[in-house]
């Protein structure tokens, strides 16, 4: 195609440049993974060198003794529940706004769009006061509610676009066949929107898994910490033990990296599509 407009000789230095840039991305990650499997003494002797011994000690001790394990499970629990709720509510609302022309559609859409720009700094103080008045600070319900609320505007917007792309004739046909609202939605519309739903699920999962600020202020108890605040504590407390910190980072990064490895084309292309709409 015509996009191949660079001349042949020019492509080689460009390739080298891109490869160097890729190496600058991969090297820190690689360095981190290696460091997680070395002893502290071995690391201090030569941080950049190849480890002389390999050990799982760091992973085990950061998981058990420094609370990364329980934090990991807490995050998994909170994010899974919040994700399911977001997907259910956003599917209902997105389908409704795309196809059913509900009463008050303008107000509903307007309010979703208007809060998309709200930075979390504006929300933390009132949210904290509201939830402490409800006695929910330190309760997983508070963080789940908040993750659902802050994810919904984008999720609804994204799914409204996806459902709008489904032809009316398909849905009308289902209705003429006697399918009610739920049947039409879950038997016809949702299967057709599956690729968008999957992309959305991955994006929202990553967003919640990686979130720090709300997790920090809404779950102040050490015993209930989610992964990101736990990790920032580990990073501060143990900053002289880089292998241990790296092991913690590896635990936190493992889920997003695995997710990316298995869904990369999906996510990467989903983002390009989502943004061009």
């Amino acid at each position, binding site marked *: 195609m015509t996009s191949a*407009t660079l001349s042949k000789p020019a492509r080689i230095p460009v390739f080298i440049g891109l490869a160097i840039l890729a190496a600058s991305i991969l090297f820190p990650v690689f360095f981190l993974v290696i460091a997680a499997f070395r002893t502290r003494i071995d690391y201090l002797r030569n941080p950049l060198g190849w480890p002389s011994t390999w050990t799982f000690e760091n992973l085990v001790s950061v998981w058990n003794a420094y609370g990364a394990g329980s934090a990991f499970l807490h995050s998994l629990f909170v994010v899974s529940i919040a994700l399911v709720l977001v997907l259910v509510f956003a599917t209902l609302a997105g389908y409704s706004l795309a196809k059913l022309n509900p009463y008050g559609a303008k107000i509903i859409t307007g309010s979703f769009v208007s809060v998309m720009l709200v930075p979390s*700094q504006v929300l933390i103080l009132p949210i904290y006061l509201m939830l402490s008045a409800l006695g929910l600070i330190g309760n997983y319900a508070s963080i789940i509610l908040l993750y659902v609320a802050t994810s919904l505007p984008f999720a609804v917007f994204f799914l409204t676009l996806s459902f709008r792309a489904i032809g009316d004739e398909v849905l009308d*046909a289902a209705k003429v066949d006697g399918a009610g609202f739920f049947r039409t939605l879950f038997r016809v519309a949702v299967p057709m929107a599956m690729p968008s739903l999957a992309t959305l699920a991955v994006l929202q999962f990553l967003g919640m898994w990686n979130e720090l600020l709300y997790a920090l202020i809404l779950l102040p108890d050490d015993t209930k910490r989610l992964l990101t605040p736990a990790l920032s504590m580990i*990073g501060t407390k143990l900053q002289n033990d880089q292998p241990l910190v790296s092991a913690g980072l590896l635990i936190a990064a493992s889920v997003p990296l695995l997710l990316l490895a298995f869904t990369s084309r999906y996510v*990467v292309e989903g983002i390009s599509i989502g943004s061009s709409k």
Partner: protein
Amino acid sequence: MTTTEIARATVGAPEPGVPTLAPRRAAAWRRRERRIGLAAAAPAFLIVVGFMIYPVLFALYISFNRTDGEDFSWVWLSNYVNILADPLVHQVFVNNLKFLISVPLVVFFSVIVSVLLFEKIRGWRFFRFVYFLPNVLSIVVVGVMFKGIFGYNGAVNSAIVALGGQPITFFTDGNLAIWVIITALVWSGFGYQSLLILSGLSSIDSSVFEAAALDGAGWWRRLFSITLPNIRRELGFVFIINVLYTFTSLFGFIFVMTAGGPGYDTTTIDYLVYLKAFGSENLGPGAALAVLLFLFIGVLTLVQNRVFRIQDED
């Protein structure tokens, strides 16, 4: 599609849908559908009203009060006056301006990368994957990682020592620390943004390039007179979100890398809002600062939308 065909066969109507129903029944049916639609959208709407719209209004209310969170006394604009006259806020705002250096850097890298990836250089899919990789990592992970790499015993210092230099303490000097954070920001940010630009590039009509090539326009000429003008909408968007990032999304980096220090040398506005909200007796000024930040973001978005004429093209 098969459902449609079956429906057509069974109903026998030339058009799918409801035209077989009498108009009045169709109207009643449509009203019923609109009610169901409202019920379906209601849960999401109520959650967003309760946990986003109401809190924003509540923040606005707090910003006009002197309060410890329980007793409120209305003080009009004194929190705002207080904030705008606060030398610390001025210092922190200047810090934010320093972080703006990251914007041209991210835009520069993402434009170069996307234009070159668009050439379908060998292995471009792999490169695209690698560049995107930092984006799935938490800011906490990236921040702690860079803190380690630039730490006293980190990779950078051992490279400096290996080359015969003295180790540098990056985090005791505010400006050096800002550079480290900017590096982390660019490192983790440009991949996603180049994806955005890449999607803009893919939507350019390829016949324009063909015509230009026939006219003898060279690669650079095509870049500046066709490629870049055609993606100015994406460039504008990338520019806007990066400016917004430097005012709203540095919290995680600052929190894990420097905690705002040394002194307040790396404290940014979003970090200061956190400090004020959870470290002072009167919550009003913190809320006022958050509201000002929100207004600033809104104005910035409007101005930049005008400048890049994003609305005209849509």
